[in-house]
């Protein structure tokens, strides 16, 4: 299962989610996107977006103030492939 990394630490809203959307458009259903996040609000933002699109997320705290969010795209047939 291909896994792609995205670094958003040091990005200020709305850049992180814009980057995530761009990557999500590039990737296909079942692909895994792992995002490094340095800001609590960004974690919330991406999770809200993922929930809206029906993607599955898993967040782990790497260190205080640093999170890794794993996103699985297009599971359950709800996210459409981009092209």
């Amino acid at each position, binding site marked *: 299962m291909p896994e792609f990394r995205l670094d958003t630490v040091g990005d200020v809203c709305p850049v992180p989610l814009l980057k995530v959307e761009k990557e999500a458009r590039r990737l296909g259903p079942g692909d895994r996107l792992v995002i490094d996040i340095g800001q609590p609000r960004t974690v919330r933002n991406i999770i809200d977006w993922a929930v809206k699109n029906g993607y599955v997320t*898993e967040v782990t*705290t790497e260190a*205080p103030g640093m999170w890794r969010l794993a996103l699985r795209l297009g599971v359950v047939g709800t996210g459409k492939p981009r092209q």
Partner: protein
Amino acid sequence: MRRPAFLREWSYIAGATALAAAEVAFLLTFGSAIGLTAPLAGIVPMWARGLPDGAALLFDAAIVGGAFLSAVTAGEFRPRLCVYKPRVLVLALIGGLLMGVGARLAPGCNIGGVIGGIASFSLQGWVEAVSVVAGAYIGTRYLGGGR
């Protein structure tokens, strides 16, 4: 999957309710709504007259302190400086300048002029609200979002 439990965060509505409660408490105590930007410009707001010097600035500091307390107790505090690209920092500075000027003109920032104004049933609050949204739209388009 909804928000993980260990993020220990509140809902947006809880935050809104808390802020509204803070506003009303402030009104009861001082007769005015909360304002954040006046002390940063060296202005002593009406509500702080009669209070020790720097009281209004201390209020702003208390907000920083409260956020710090929340972050630390949730394990989210992290000093971050080197992760930001220079462009981000410059934009922040310029954005701050524009906010500072705008807040003196409107008058009032998002909490003081918009929310405070609307809650006070003042037309100024509504006009500022629309103007802030318009300005945010322009800024967002300028930064490359939306079509």
